[in-house]
């Protein structure tokens, strides 16, 4: 990133910071080792590059500085010790409001990822900025899974906040057509929603060192292990592949301790432990090394409400494609947006272990086909799924918004 040059004076600096013209707010800790942080980085940088200066409002912790100045950008972190999610969210809202209100005449564009930052941005009176709502998930769908006691009344209140966000924001962006359709079905206006998929970095697997202890032939599953990821289906499929005695499944996984323990027990109960190689919570570089040597990458997503309605843009599929690895994935709308069957990947009906096992068998028996699919996948990733292409789309939206602002200076 841009570095301010060192000032060799005896006095602390004064008045050196540019007025932020772009504001990006995310109710997330940043930086953090998860997918959301990559989005925040890529999108906030795109915004601040476009506006020339910017302010990023995120959550912090004791480790992260509450205020950073990096060239023409600032990062402000709310270090809230509040353990209650909703109270923390409302505190964040006040934090965002204070900044947005103060900068209401300076900002050109304000971009938010959730209603907690969005509602306050929309509530600022006499503001000169336009707003972009980036919808990756909806709290009204995600939170009931996390907090089992949420009543339908509370949920309805959250939905009303979300509704205000997609009604009042000038533009909406989301990572998949599925979530776009979900928003339209809720009543959002189709012509202000743009799908911007997840990006990846194109990597030549031949340039990467495969782990020294890697087996001759292996499948890979990498990512998180929530129930909707479909690891149970994959385990069951492995029981059908016992005759392929050389074949292993490498699991580069992370997740909650109880869930990982449960999966290990399940593997033992299914007697597939000897087919598995667990790589728990390994560094990213190690995941890349394993991916480079894999024959096939597997994404056995479950056909559940979460995957069907809210959708997602499975980053493991995009990353595998970018490394020219053939992906076998569940035939779900979110996946079909990324993969064409037998062209840029291989689709199977979800929740059918025997079908998954058969697909693995077919691809392993046809290495030339495997290579062709992998290469096509990489070509597709290079053409439309790099961060450079996705952030160019976003910059185009910012450009349109500021053009509208110039055309109609009295419109907030």
């Amino acid at each position, binding site marked *: *990133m841009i570095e301010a040059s060192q000032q060799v004076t005896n006095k602390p600096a004064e008045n050196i910071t540019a007025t932020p013209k772009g504001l990006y707010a995310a109710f997330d800790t940043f930086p953090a*080792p*998860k997918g959301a942080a990559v989005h925040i*980085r890529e999108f906030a*940088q795109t915004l601040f590059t476009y506006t020339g200066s910017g302010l990023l409002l995120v959550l912090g912790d004791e480790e992260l500085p509450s205020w950073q100045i990096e060239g023409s950008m600032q990062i402000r972190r709310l270090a809230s010790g509040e353990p209650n999610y909703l109270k923390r969210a*409302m505190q964040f*809202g006040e934090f965002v409001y204070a900044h947005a209100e103060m900068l209401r005449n300076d900002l050109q564009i304000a971009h938010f990822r959730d209603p907690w930052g969005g509602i306050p941005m929309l509530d600022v009176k006499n503001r000169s900025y336009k707003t972009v709502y980036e919808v990756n998930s909806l709290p009204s769908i995600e939170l009931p899974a996390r907090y089992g006691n949420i009543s339908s009344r509370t949920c309805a209140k959250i939905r009303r906040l979300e509704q205000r966000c997609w009604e009042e924001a000038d533009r909406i962006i989301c990572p998949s057509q599925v979530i776009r359709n979900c928003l339209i079905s809720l009543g959002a206006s189709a012509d202000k929603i743009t799908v911007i998929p997840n990006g990846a970095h194109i990597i030549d697997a031949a340039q990467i060192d495969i782990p020294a202890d890697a087996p001759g032939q292996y499948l890979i599953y990498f990512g998180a292990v929530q129930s909707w990821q479909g690891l149970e289906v994959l385990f069951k499929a492995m029981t059908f592949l016992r005759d392929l005695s050389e074949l292993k499944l490498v699991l580069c996984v992370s*997740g909650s301790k109880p869930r990982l323990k449960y999966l290990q027990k399940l593997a033992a109960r299914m007697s597939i432990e000897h087919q598995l190689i667990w790589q728990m919570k390994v560094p990213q570089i190690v995941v890349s090394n394993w991916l480079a040597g894999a024959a096939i990458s597997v994404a056995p997503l479950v056909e559940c409400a979460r995957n069907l309605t809210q959708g997602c843009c499975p980053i493991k599929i995009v990353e595998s494609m970018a490394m020219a690895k053939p992906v076998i994935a569940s035939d779900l709308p979110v996946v079909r947006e990324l993969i064409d069957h037998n062209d840029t990947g291989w689709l199977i009906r979800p929740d059918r272990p025997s079908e998954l096992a058969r697909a693995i068998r077919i691809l392993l028996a046809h290495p030339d086909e495997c290579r062709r699919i992998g290469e096509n996948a990489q070509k597709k990733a290079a053409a439309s799924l790099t961060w450079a292409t996705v952030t160019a789309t976003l910059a185009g939206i910012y450009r349109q918004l500021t053009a509208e602002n110039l055309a109609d200076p009295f419109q907030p």
Partner: protein
Amino acid sequence: MENCNMKRGFFFLRDCDYPAHQSCSSCGKSFCNEHLRLKPGISAPFCLDCLGKTMQQSIQGKDKGVSTRDNYDDYYYDTAWCYGYRSNYYSSGSYKPWYFGSVNADDSDFNDSDIRVFDAASESDDPDAEAFDPEANVFDS
């Protein structure tokens, strides 16, 4: 003299490797000049981290009815404060569009019974189940 104690970087935080010039009057740690600001009125150097925290506390102070407005006017018009909370924020009243405490004033606002279910203890799943451990980020290159 030791190096500056501030972190820098956007995505990957690292130590600021400039030599420290002075100590922060609040936390006492040493920082380079880029990471220090003179606190108006006091004229003593404060690090950005301590200044940022001061501003956050001043929001909470406002909630408790502590009038900080006059004190802060000077700071907030000083751009060295980088758009801290100017007086117009303080005079506009605190922003609480969605919370009405235990009184269910409006059907669309959160009340205590809404809030209660979000206690950390009632969280069923690991919130970071999707997260990767530090330096275990598959998503980043």
